[in-house]
């Protein structure tokens, strides 16, 4: 903010063509407000719908104000269906898979950043390329394996799949972050007699904390919102919130208002976590961008 106002003040004092361009650049902020509105619109729509009756929710033209606000949908979602069970499953699966992803990703990213070989770059690209394949392509084999191994509809089964899916992204993010940490500091730790575990936990981790936090938040969100696998390999015991929401578009009919209420309820935990680590996130996502 201070940077914004100071450069603005300078451009007002010396009105040169350059300063004019600078002024115009500040005006670009205005369209960004519109863009933010477009991005948030579906969310706003769902938020409003969650307070409507089912009839009002499907009414056309839609009404944005002047409908009868009610908490009935929330009451029903919380009371008559197993929201808390699904919430519990989501926390276990998203939390567990994210921790496991970090547990595997940190050593992998450490090796790639600080002990690279000739194949490191190719390996990174190859890992990312697996993310470019459609998940549905491996649905049948994985389903069959899971059936035989007894992993269908289990926390462990879903968490392992999400870990495998998110690991490439986590390693990429951590790798980019670790590359910003001066290698000499880790070498100093080695000279000081730190073991590899101490080097990673006591020296590297605190320095890379923002990067670790933003990586954790990203993969947690991805795992939390994942719906392809949760819909296909869970039925009752390991149903997550995404599968729970989808259940409101059932053969008996599409319940928009209740679906919206369930969606809102499943968004809340992520928003809370995001809010709590906001500062870490900002410095993590822009890590190394400004020095």
């Amino acid at each position, binding site marked *: 903010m201070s940077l914004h106002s100071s450069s603005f003040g300078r451009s007002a004092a010396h009105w040169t063509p350059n300063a004019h361009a600078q002024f115009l650049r500040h005006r670009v902020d205005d369209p960004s407000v519109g863009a933010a509105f477009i991005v948030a619109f579906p969310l706003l729509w769902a938020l409003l719908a969650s307070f409507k009756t089912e009839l009002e929710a499907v009414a056309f033209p839609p009404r944005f104000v002047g409908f009868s606000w009610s908490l009935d949908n929330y009451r029903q979602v919380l009371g008559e269906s197993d929201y808390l069970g699904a919430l519990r499953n989501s926390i276990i699966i998203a939390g567990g898979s994210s921790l496991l992803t970090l547990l595997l990703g940190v050593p992998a990213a450490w090796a790639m950043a600080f002990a690279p070989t000739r194949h490191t770059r190719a390996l990174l690209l190859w890992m990312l390329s697996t993310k470019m394949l459609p998940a549905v392509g491996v649905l049948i084999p994985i389903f069959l394996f899971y059936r035989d191994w007894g992993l269908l509809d289990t926390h462990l089964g879903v968490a392992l799949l999400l870990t495998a899916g998110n690991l490439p992204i986590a390693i990429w993010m951590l790798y980019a972050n670790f590359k910003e940490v001066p290698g000499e*500091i880790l070498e*100093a730790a080695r*000279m*000081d*007699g730190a*073991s590899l575990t101490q080097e990673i936990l006591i020296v590297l981790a605190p*320095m890379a904390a923002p990067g670790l936090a933003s990586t954790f938040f990203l993969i947690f969100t991805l795992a939390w919102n994942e719906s392809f696998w949760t819909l296909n390999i869970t039925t009752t015991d390991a149903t997550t919130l995404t599968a729970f929401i989808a259940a409101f578009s059932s053969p008996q009919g599409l319940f928009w208002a209740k679906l919206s209420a369930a969606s809102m309820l499943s968004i809340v935990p992520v928003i809370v976590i995001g809010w709590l680590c906001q500062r870490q996130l900002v410095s993590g996502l822009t890590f190394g961008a400004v020095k």
Partner: protein
Amino acid sequence: MSNIVLERVSKRFGDTLVTDNIDLVIPAGKFTVFVGPSGCGKTTLLRLIAGLEDIDQGRLLIDGADMGQTPPAARGLAMVFQSYALYPHMSVRANLGFALKVAHTPPRDIAARVEAVAKLLDLSALLDRKPAALSGGQRQRVAIGRALVREPKAFLFDEPLSNLDAALRSQMRIEIRRLQQDLGITAIYVTHDQAEAMTMADQIVVFREGRIEQVGAPLEIYRRPTNRFVAGFIGSPCMNFLSGARAAAFGATTIGFRPEHLRLDASGELRGVVRTVEHLGNEALVHVQLEDDTMITARCTEDTALHPGAPIAFTPDPASIHRFDQDNRALDVG
């Protein structure tokens, strides 16, 4: 006090041989400086000694024991890095005590040794600060303190002063040297600055392209360089070289003479025109273009009135002329 011996040490990075068959003795309790242009292998050799890189061939002996396969910390060496490499999230106290802490030293002993080192380096008032709140010179002292606290067999310095400004650099130069002499500890110091090498070393090792060009005491290297590279690299401003007929008259392919060994002499054989004069106050460096367009530099007193464009003539001191053969080896040093 420990001595370090390198026997036929080689290291490759891919296809590049960065140190080539190095044989070297680092005497106990002495200050040895590795000097050379960048990319000459001096830092790699230091890292091989430290254990931060693996030796491909040859042996590293510390006090007679082969340390080639020993992990860095177990070699008993301490290193001061170019970037200081302090732990940014720890206080000065924690930085100094880190090595002792990971070695499971009792907390009371850690505190005592940290305090002692802090006192020695004048860091006592800064113990609770984070590195970010220190000046460059203070960070440098913490980096040295961190090495000192382990009571190492030898100190390894990797261009530790290159991030400091000139005034602080010359002050730290003296402090490091004094500390090393007071403690009588073996030290290896890597620099590309020949002035640092000259002023600090007991023994200078001049490197070029992965090989040792010359080993010796500073004045010995200055006065009796064994080849043209060392002659040109050590000394500032650097030695003047002449070849062709002038060198042939001395029975050499090239002759060299230092700027201070030129005497103003109106009938001298080296005639030319003054191009620029650098006034240093106590002396002036005169850059002269000779009749055959060779540029030479002479050290003159400030009372000689010299102006760009003025004709000038010198005679080199015949006793201080260095002669080199066609392979650039010195002819008079054996």
